[in-house]
């Protein structure tokens, strides 16, 4: 149905032409579900944009053919392409909120597509739009028809985007990272929905993702891309059990799963012995009846409801839950960026919950409790070089000046594996993994003994995630610090943590040693989280 031969895509940039896709071939049969897997910069998204002919300015298809059911997509007129988009090939975009017009009712947006492709008239458009919303299992579709995107949750928005994409019964659907930014249980619901619809309607699909586990679960065949080239193709089980290319092996290894040690994420040659970390007897952080209540429009919102837990010296604790469960509020209170409503936080026996967050910056304990933020890009000032970012806490909290700062900054860079020659670069000149390292180096600058890790690897590629997680595991041993690892992914938390706390709706529903919680979850919510994580086929026992 779709045949791609020698497709190359190039972009004009300030430093000359950059080839994003360098001659790839693949075919897609009717009803086939293809997965394109690769890390950022591999050219996987660009390939799909090239098929839809929606490349950014400066991008062009340099060579090769893309034939869809006899239509040459490369040379088709813009007019023909407009007919093909939506009716023949449709796309589900990465960020559902950005893909929807924020000031138009979602029902009207679906009507627009239907009417553009003459699938509906003025009279029956509304009924058909509601039908489309019902098809994606939106409850109370008639009421949702009137909703604006901002009134819907992320998962609901993605359902609307899927309804839009499927409204005109396309033959091929391209899903570009459709579940990034969604919770793990929502991810499962959305992927199951797309999969059911694709199968029921006999469509072909292309799933573009960085997650090999996800692709293996929802695709018949997987194409692995790296640097604009296809390095390997095959069916998912074969890819997992017997990866041929070194890069595929690396990806397979780096995919977190239910079992295996943190070192197993790394390529075989780089697995050193993981030194054990020592958990002390004394509690470092003792949280007692911690609560946070916001004043909402319709009464008080209880974001965190009297939770209590203890973190011992040197211990790593995972805090797991979906967005809105209160885990971010909890970590903000622990790091003293947010005032508490009630309850206590004891740091080595001293209650810090009563100290106002606004003045904690000057408190002597500021340097002892630090945090690594979720989005490394957002947490680095675009106008500060890596060196300035790492040096900032040294200047402000440690009172260091001059050469001492330079020396310590370089020491921290070395410790976190950040290349010293990149220290004078701005964040936008660094890769995601490098930015994550700068964030970690900055948090460690003041020699804290309690570090909150707020999904530090959420925005990273799996192979980079593997490196960062291992770096964190090594640093813990080397510096003897305690972590509170906040995440929505139990498979990742399990790798680094000794103890895990599961939160739902502001309360702790389960907590215990990682192995116990993973193997014999007591609470149904924990089981749901566990089953929602994509199950990668087991790799061959080496």
């Amino acid at each position, binding site marked *: 149905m779709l045949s791609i031969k020698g497709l190359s895509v190039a972009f004009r940039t300030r430093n000359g032409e950059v080839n994003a896709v360098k001659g790839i071939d693949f075919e897609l049969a009717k009803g086939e579900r293809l997965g394109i897997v690769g890390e950022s910069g591999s050219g996987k998204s660009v390939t799909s944009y090239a098929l839809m002919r929606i490349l950014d300015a400066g991008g062009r298809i340099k060579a090769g053919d893309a034939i869809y059911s006899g239509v040459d997509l490369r040379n088709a007129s813009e007019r023909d392409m407009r007919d093909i988009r939506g009716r023949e090939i449709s796309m589900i975009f990465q960020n559902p909120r950005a893909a929807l017009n924020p000031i138009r009712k979602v029902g009207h947006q679906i009507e627009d597509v239907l009417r553009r492709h003459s699938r509906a008239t003025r009279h029956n458009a509304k009924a058909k739009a509601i039908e489309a919303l019902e098809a994606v299992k939106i409850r109370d579709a008639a009421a949702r028809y009137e909703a604006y995107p901002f009134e819907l949750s992320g998962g609901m928005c993605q359902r609307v985007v899927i309804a839009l994409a499927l409204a005109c019964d396309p033959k091929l659907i391209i899903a570009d990272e459709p579940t990034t930014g969604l919770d793990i249980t929502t991810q499962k619901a959305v992927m199951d929905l797309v999969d059911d619809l694709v199968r029921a309607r006999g469509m072909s699909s292309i799933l573009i993702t960085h997650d090999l586990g996800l692709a293996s679960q929802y695709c018949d065949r997987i194409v692995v891309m790296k640097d604009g080239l296809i390095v390997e193709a095959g069916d998912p089980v074969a890819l997992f059990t017997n990866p041929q290319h070194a890069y595929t092996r690396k990806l397979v290894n780096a995919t977190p799963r239910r079992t295996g040690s943190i070192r197993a994420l790394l390529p075989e040659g780089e697995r050193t012995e993981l030194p054990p970390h020592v958990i002390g007897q004394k509690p470092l952080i003792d949280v007692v009846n911690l609560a946070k209540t916001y004043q909402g429009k319709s009464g008080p919102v209880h974001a965190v409801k009297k939770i209590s837990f203890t973190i011992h010296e040197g211990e790593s604790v995972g805090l797991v839950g979906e967005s809105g469960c209160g885990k971010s509020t909890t970590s903000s209170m622990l790091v003293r960026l947010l005032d508490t409503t009630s309850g206590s936080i004891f740091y080595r026996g001293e209650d810090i919950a009563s100290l106002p967050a*606004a003045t904690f910056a000057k408190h002597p304990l500021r340097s002892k409790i630090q945090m690594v933020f979720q989005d490394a890009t*957002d947490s680095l*000032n*675009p*106008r500060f070089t890596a060196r300035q970012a790492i040096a900032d806490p040294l200047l402000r909290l440690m009172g260091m000046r001059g050469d001492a700062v330079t020396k310590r900054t370089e020491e921290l860079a070395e410790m976190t594996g950040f290349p010293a020659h990149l220290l004078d670069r*701005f964040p936008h000149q660094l890769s995601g993994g490098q930015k994550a390292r700068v*964030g970690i180096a900055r*948090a460690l600058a003041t020699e804290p003994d309690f570090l909150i890790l707020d999904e530090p690897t959420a925005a990273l590629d799996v192979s980079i995630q593997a490196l960062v997680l291992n770096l964190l595991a090594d640093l813990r041993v080397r510096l003897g610090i305690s972590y509170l690892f906040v995440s929505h992914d139990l498979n990742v938390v399990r790798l680094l943590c000794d103890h895990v706390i599961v939160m739902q709706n502001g309360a702790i529903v389960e907590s215990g040693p990682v192995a116990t919680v993973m193997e014999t979850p007591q609470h149904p919510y924990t089981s749901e989280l566990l089953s929602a994580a994509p199950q990668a086929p087991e790799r061959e026992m080496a």
Partner: protein
Amino acid sequence: MNKIVSSATDAASVNSAQANAPATPAKPKSGAFAHLVYVLRENPVTGLAFGMFALLIFAAIFGPMIVPYDPLATDAASVLQPPSFAHWFGTDNLGRDVFSRVVVATRLDLVISVAAVALSFVIGSFLGAIAGYRGGWTDITLNRVLDTIMAFPLFVLAMGVVAALGNSVANIIYATAIINIPFYARLVRAEVNIRRNAGFTLAAKLSGNSDARILAFHIFPNALPPMMVQVSLNLGWAILNAAGLSFIGLGVRPPTPEWGIMVAEGANFIVSGEWWLALFPGLSLMIAVLTFNLMGDGLRDIVDPRRRT
């Protein structure tokens, strides 16, 4: 003000360097300078704008030294002469050389506009940054005050200020600054507001920065790129405003050469055919405003580190 002038002279030297060696590819140069060259090369309009700005600065600094006639010297023998080789832009009703007057006026007009813009930039940034960072009542109060200022016809407000404070160059500057403050304050407020809960702001708090320090050194610099566009547009408006005040008789007094007064005085003679009296100062005014408006994008690209690769 000094900063703006020095960056303009930098720009001028870059331009001439480019003109001298257009064919040879740029050698890898370090940081800021290479970036400047790149910005000017990428967009020829920016290069042109900076070139014209350099010319204006040159006229402002050296104008009084290079003009052929004393701009204030009257000459009863040659009154209302059309443009000729001796008097490029002709002479006015008192026999003064229009070319000399137009060139000499550059300094006064630039000083008024740059000083007014600098003043409104500083005050507006300060107010807007605090309102955007604190939010709440501070924000609401400031916004209502700014709304009140903007609700007046701005030129009428400026007229009122000058009329109340008295006719002097300093008062024109204050009046122009006051009517421009809301634009800066609102822009900075919006730019600061979207960053006050950004990850890097929280990280700065964890690094032990005080609120004032975070605002001044972490958040505010990120608002500079859009500010630069505003600055260049405002420079144009400020010149027009100053000229407009002079035109209606407020502000600079005759016989001081100033574009607005010259247009006002020359306007009377257009009907009798002596068009050059008003045309040339008017053209200078237009070119100056155009220059500032064209410069905006280039200035933004220069101060934005993300444009460097």
